[in-house]
């Protein structure tokens, strides 16, 4: 039996197998650790279109309609879902006009329950998260009830404010900040009680204006001023006037458009073309 060569390192005799094993260990362990880490930290999805809106408006239905091209039964969501789609799903079914980009994009569906709205808000406010557009899905058939208008406008107010904040933060750091466009998708226009999109647009602008006024007059938040939150003096749109119009919001980086449609009736072409415009932008 041939004696294995023995090296001497720092005065200790070390045999070859031990040396090899320890060298291997030194090389392999960082690799394994690195792999473990890499698997854990996924970078967020790119080109995200956000679906937001009050409960029972049809966000998840719209998402699944885009994916499956059929109406899929849904229930109230409790967690957000991000789905990767190819841009071809946005092109109208009959025309073969492929979008200019073929890069897949993501749609993030968020829960509409008022306790769970901060997922959508957070996605917008975080400048690191990708968000190329927000589709605010609303139920146009219930807007004849004042309480539902209030509910719808309240969430919209928060979203618009978040978009404005994102624009403000981005424009501080870079010269060419891109604003996030928002589409108010008036779903369920196949129903008898559904209001036309122009009417909804006016209703929401009026409600938002009133909301802005009462917010200005309302009480301070608890804890306001303690840790000088930047939320304090942040109001939607022009600080000088309570009036909110879609045009007025444009200069604050909030681009709002309103379109009617219906997931159930399959009339989503307007929305999908808006989305593909977002993708192309």
């Amino acid at each position: 039996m041939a004696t294995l060569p023995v090296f001497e390192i720092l005065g200790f005799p070390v045999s070859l197998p031990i040396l090899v094993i320890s060298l291997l260990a030194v090389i392999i362990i960082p690799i394994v650790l690195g792999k473990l880490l890499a698997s854990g930290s996924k970078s967020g999805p790119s080109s995200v279109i956000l679906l937001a809106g009050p409960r029972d408006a049809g966000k998840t239905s719209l998402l699944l309609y885009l994916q499956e091209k059929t109406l899929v039964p849904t229930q109230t969501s409790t967690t957000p879902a991000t789905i990767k789609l190819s841009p071809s799903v946005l092109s109208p079914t009959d025309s073969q006009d492929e979008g200019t980009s073929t890069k897949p994009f993501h749609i993030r569906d968020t829960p509409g329950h008022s306790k769970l709205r901060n997922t959508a808000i957070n996605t917008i406010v975080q400048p690191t998260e990708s968000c190329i557009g927000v589709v605010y899905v609303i139920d146009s058939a219930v807007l004849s009830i004042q309480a539902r208008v209030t509910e719808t406008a309240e969430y919209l107010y928060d979203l618009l404010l978040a978009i404005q904040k994102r624009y403000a933060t981005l424009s501080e750091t870079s010269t060419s900040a891109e604003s996030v466009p928002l589409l108010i998708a008036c779903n369920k226009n196949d129903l008898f009680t559904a209001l036309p999109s122009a009417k909804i647009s006016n209703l929401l602008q009026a409600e938002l204006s009133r909301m802005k006024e009462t917010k200005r007059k309302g009480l301070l938040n608890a804890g306001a001023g303690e840790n000088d939150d930047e939320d304090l003096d942040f109001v939607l749109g022009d600080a000088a006037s309570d009036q909110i119009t879609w045009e007025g919001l444009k200069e604050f980086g909030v681009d709002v458009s309103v379109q009617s449609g219906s997931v159930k009736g399959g009339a989503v072409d307007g929305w999908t073309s808006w989305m593909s415009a977002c993708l192309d932008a």
Partner: protein
Amino acid sequence: MRKPQATRPVAQQLGGIRLSMYLNTLHCLGGPIANQRYIITNVILSVCLQPSPTYPRTSLYFLSETAAAHHLHCALLVRPIMLDLFEVITTSGVVLWSKSYAPVKSSIINSLISDVFIEERNQPGSDGKWFKKDSYTLKWTLAADVGLVFVAVYQSLLHLTWIDELLDQVKKLFVALYGEKIKASGGAKIQCHFDQYFEASLRSLERKAGGSAPIRSANTLPDDPSSEGNGGGLSDGDEWSAPPPMPGVKNPVETPYSSGKSNPLIEVTPSTTSSPVSSATMAQALLQASGRRPGRPRRNRKSAGPSSASSAHASSGEERSPARLSNKPKRGKEMRIWGEDGIAADAGDERKLDYSAGISTDDEQDDSLRPKPEAIDQDTWGTRTSQGDFLLKDLDHEIDGILKEASKAENNGETNQKRPGGLASGLVGGAMGYLRNFVGGKTLTREDTDKAISGVMTHLLEKNVAREAAVQICDSVQTSLIGQKTGSFQSIESLVKLAMEDALRKILTPTTSLDLLREIGQVREAEQRPYVISIVGVNGVGKSTNLSKICFFLLQNKLKVLIAACDTFRSGAVEQLRVHARNLKELSEREGGVVELYEKGYGKDAANIAKDAVAYANAQGFDVVLIDTAGRRHNDQRLMSSLEKFAKFADPDKILMVGEALVGSDSVQQARNFNAAFGKERKLDGFIISKCDTVGDMVGTLISMVFATGIPVVFLGVGQNYTDLRTLNVKWAVGLLMS
């Protein structure tokens, strides 16, 4: 599938009981004897079991005659379905798979999700195990790791003991079959062909319940006479193999039946595994409880001829039929076949039924008809059976395999954790587990989170959260964490902390708009009446102080406010308000607000004064009425009972309860009692948490009160001045609680 409509209307007539009808092939029932007679059995039985039979027996005769007249060549089976709906939903809201036996509004499940899952409001007494809505009971189970919810919906009248087992079994099956796919899809819709698996599981559980349940059911029957009729009776019968027993089964003459099995000539025969005693017990209970038809003649065995043993293979394509064939020996109960007059019964297992074609003496059909269908019958019978059996066996094996594997994996997980196999593998496993604690990627179990959770709980208790609330919040956080993976370099503690922050934020976030000014404006515009706010609470928490703060806030917004002094009990209360009113008037003169005090002295009924005050305000064109009430102890029934009348008379738009931030574990009970004090229709609308400046960061009372009732915090009192009123900032509160 010929003439399924023939009996459908009749079945639908039986309003109290929901019957689903299935076309079934002859052999699925076990033999040529089984034909429409079987339907009749079930239908008549159902009606007999109804608490108040609105449909006279004659209509049933009509059914049987119709059926006979039509000579249906397929067996129509009327199946009393116990389950109304079973759905598998992802947490992102997609219905992956659902099986509906009766139309159920989707809002039923929606309200389960929003009430229990999102707002975490368990119904009293449910302990988070069931949820009742309209006439339905919902039970559910969660698979947190794949984000699935399994919901079973059934009529509350039924006592289904096997629902939990079904949910558990379906969960294991579904996760095993589609778990990977669901994880990969990231919340999108996937195709699930789960029908067969579900049917088989349902069947086997029903069969199992059919054998064991009757005794339990007999015990429960007297408690609830209204439900036993269609509830207890139906829930026990395995409708495929055995109809529920008839009232009057308990009879000395019954005993021969059990031995009658050996003699194929005796028509009335219970199946081998059926338990005549238990079914008889149940029948007796039924009879006693309902007290109906005590003198009813016993089943007339003579006339129980298997009248039309026509072949029935028109529906051979039906996919469910093979499942029904499962485990013939396991049949739970005897099957009864009803004669033309609706009295005669015939019971026998399918083997018996096989022979019966040969032996039966059909009294109403001419014999010449019989052989022909028989011949066809046997032809298709064989192939179909073997096919069906094969398919079924396959499926059953598969299901068993999946379930076994799932439970094995579970056990493995447990043993692995407790005692790793070898020393070396134990060391490696331990090292990896230890490493994962730091590096992340560890799948959490209840044991892993125990330590972190108890740490967070202590933290919450230190923040003055009531123990009851803290325990429940921690429980729900822990449950939500099981099965989750830690992120890279994320410790369990930080994950638990994040989850707790989320939970607290969810609790504190209001579900309704709390913009008081806008609501006042809307009410003024739309209804031209004053907006009424009343303030209640325990003694000395600061009702009058907070009322005057709110008043000041409203006055600053140029509103006309009337303060109604409805504390007619404590001396000095009215004078105190008078001072406030005078101060506020002086302060607001420049702003343009108008304030007035409405007082009627002491000793009068507060509810009446409040009513008068509202009427006065309406006449004088006030915008807002603020009603101050006497402080009362929340556990004093005498004082609390007057609140119901108060709420009715004054009919406030908002009832706000003032709670001290100082109060500890009593806060939960205070909130609950006040919330319940206004009667069934009226609840509190919000809390004002006073004296927040005195507790520093120990604002746990916020959480306790909101958690106990699900009612939002509208205002916080943060000082002694009129201006020291704030709205709640959820981010701020959560920050304080977690600091």
